[in-house]
């Protein structure tokens, strides 16, 4: 329970910062101010400034936009495509459709995700959008598998049999009975994939294949800071710690959600 609150709070703070940055930031992230470059944290610049004199607080806020947007959309792609695939596979367990879906999943799993993401951005050009698509594709089999596994356990339950006796089709049963009962599992997996998305985006941006200048992103901030790490370590620490804290928060939230949504624990309370 404590983990859920703490994790949720961290995620909420970063999300709020990203949203606020659309309206207001402490400093301008596109203006160059050479006079105040590489200021250490403190005073008017709580987290210091970078080599162009831009305020690091503002940079982190705007950078959060890209990270969160990429993760949200990538998880969305994975859920929207992966869950129906998993439900279909479970409804047709052992059939041809099940085999086709699950073996295609295995095929996608067999490719190293980040390398394919690099390949996609290398072919179609580096941009945040291509990063989203690349990360999203690799979320599909994750959700398909989790959904199928949870749904299979439900298909043998008697209330599903009762629905079949009531003449309901597999599609209808999947939507009406299966999906609401596996929501817990899928939501928890979602938070885990969300943190994975943030890390992936940072990694892609770090090698220059994610968000393009002048849009700041946590990964790109890290990449740009590495030549100056000896005399301005805060340039690396600020985005690096942002990534770590955000991912930690999301994982805490995922663990917490699992506990809260676990039907066994809920039964004890009932």
């Amino acid at each position, binding site marked *: 329970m404590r983990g859920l609150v703490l994790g949720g709070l961290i995620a909420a703070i970063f999300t709020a910062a990203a949203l606020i940055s659309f309206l207001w930031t402490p400093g301008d992230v596109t203006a160059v101010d050479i006079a105040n470059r590489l200021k250490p944290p403190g005073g008017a610049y709580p987290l210091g400034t970078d080599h162009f004199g831009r305020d690091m607080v503002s940079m982190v806020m705007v950078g959060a936009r890209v990270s969160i947007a990429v993760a949200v959309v990538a998880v969305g792609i994975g859920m929207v495509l992966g869950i129906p695939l998993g439900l279909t596979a479970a409804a047709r367990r052992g059939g041809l459709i099940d085999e086709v879906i699950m073996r295609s999943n295995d095929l996608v799993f067999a490719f190293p995700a980040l390398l394919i993401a690099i390949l996609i951005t290398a072919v179609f050009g580096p941009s945040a959008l291509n990063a989203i698509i690349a990360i999203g594709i690799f979320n599909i089999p994750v959700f398909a598998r989790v959904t199928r596994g949870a749904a299979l356990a439900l298909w043998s*339950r*008697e*209330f599903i*049999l*009762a*629905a*079949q*006796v*009531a*003449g*309901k089709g597999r599609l209808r049963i999947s939507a009406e*009975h299966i999906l*609401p*009962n596996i929501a817990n599992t899928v939501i928890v997996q979602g938070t885990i994939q969300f943190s994975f998305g943030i890390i992936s985006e940072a990694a892609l941006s770090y090698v220059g294949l994610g968000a393009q200048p002048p849009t700041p992103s946590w990964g790109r901030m890290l990449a740009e800071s590495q030549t100056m790490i000896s005399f301005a370590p805060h340039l690396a620490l600020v985005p690096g710690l942002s990534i770590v804290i955000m991912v930690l928060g999301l994982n805490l939230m995922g663990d917490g959600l699992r506990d809260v949504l676990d*039907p066994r624990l809920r*039964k004890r309370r*009932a």
Partner: protein
Amino acid sequence: MSLLSIERLSLSMHGIQILRDVSLSLEPGRILGLIGESGSGKTMTAFSVTRLLPRGSVLSGKILLAGTDTVTASESRMCALRGDMVGMVFQEPMTALNPLQTIGAQIAETLVLHKALSRRAAEAEARAVLDRVGLPEPEFPLTRYPHELSGGQRQRVVIAMAVACGPKLLIADEPTTALDVTTQAQILKLIRRLVDEDGMAALFITHDLAVVSDIADDVAIMQTGRVVEAGPTDEVFATQSHPYTRALFAASGHQPDRVAEVAPAPLLEVRGARRTYPGARRGLFGHHPPKVAVDDVSFTLHDGESLGLVGESGCGKSTLTRAILGLEPLQGGEIRLAGDRIDAAQGVPGAVRARMQVVFQDPYGSFNPRHKVSRLISEPFHLLDSPPTGADRRRAIDEALEAVGLSSGDAEKYAHEFSGGQRQRLAIARALIIKPALIVLDEAVSALDVRVRARILDLLADLGKAYKLSYLFISHDLHVVRRITDRVLVMQSGRIVEVGETEAVFRAPQHAYTRTLLAAAPHLPETVAGAGADASGGDI
């Protein structure tokens, strides 16, 4: 002096009183049957003896086990007692063994732990114990894994583990509830023999009066955390001095009031039904020969008839049920409901399905936990071309709920707000709501306590009359089948081996298998079963 004496034991968990002033005593060489319905505290009494209690439990009173007070003894003292002085056998043999360890290793483990034997000596000892429980060497080497054994054989391994160290006390918690009647009879005999040979004392927990009458020397009857009656089995069963005891007996022998009104018209016809499953894979492309689950089964169920189908687990009765419900295709033969063919491969039209509904065994798994009762029980309306809406739908739901003895106010509740018996009423309401001709009852009363079961059987008898229903009553419990059916089918390994009028089959079974089943089923002494008026009081 008694081996185990429990004096004024009370237990509360998280502030809720579970046991109140329980006093029992147990002598070496005797079996004490602890009887009660679910929630009566019988299992918690046994767990208190070994102090394997959930967190938040507070014990008071005295439990003297061979001179040690287990209420106050230190945890390390208790660890030494468990397994060594006290052996335990649980209900579910499928989960009581570690699937990744050989049976030999699991039995030897307790010996190494408590008797400080070497690995070698422990294995020799384990071998001897397995022989004692009826799993002899050539067929059951120590290197067998649990999945290679049947349920009854696994329960023998569990018993071997419990008695390996030569405990003074054996606690058996519903050890035969998950087993078939013939297996149950063998396990009961085994426990009796081990108790007699070793001079152990045994605490035998069960909800089944008939099982207790077969095995126990003494009984104690528990109700809501108290012992209401205790004494030698014969005496308690003969006098039944406490009203609760009388209620339990009345419910066990309860005969629902029903008159068969069978019309000669066939309702359900099964002709030469055959269902096979593909054999397990052998190598990359090969298959073992297909497994025949239902083999050339034919029978007819007439309009208004209540037909029983009995058989042990794995005999194919579940597969047959699923085929009748149109959930599994047949590989041969046909099933007709009022003339219409039921074929899962081709899909069953809603209008045909609407004439047949089902009630399953598990009152907890039968309902989507996220839906309200009104939605749950109106699910079969899906089968109708123009399902009732608005006030009509509401009226149909209320009528179904009232027909099964619930109130219309229950429509807005969730399934978890009901007890097991009430949920089974809900399941019947769901079956009833579209006025089917046939209701398939798949072990529908097997998971219920005896008093609740008696009331559900009454309800089924009443509804059968009021709604002109036919029942296909599938069960492993012979006594229940005898009380609610007109005719009975006996099934063994995929075939129907005997068909006949229920009373005739039970009085003079023709087939050898039927005779075995009937002989194995535990039963109450005749004089006792009918004693006392129908006092199955209490609410369910």
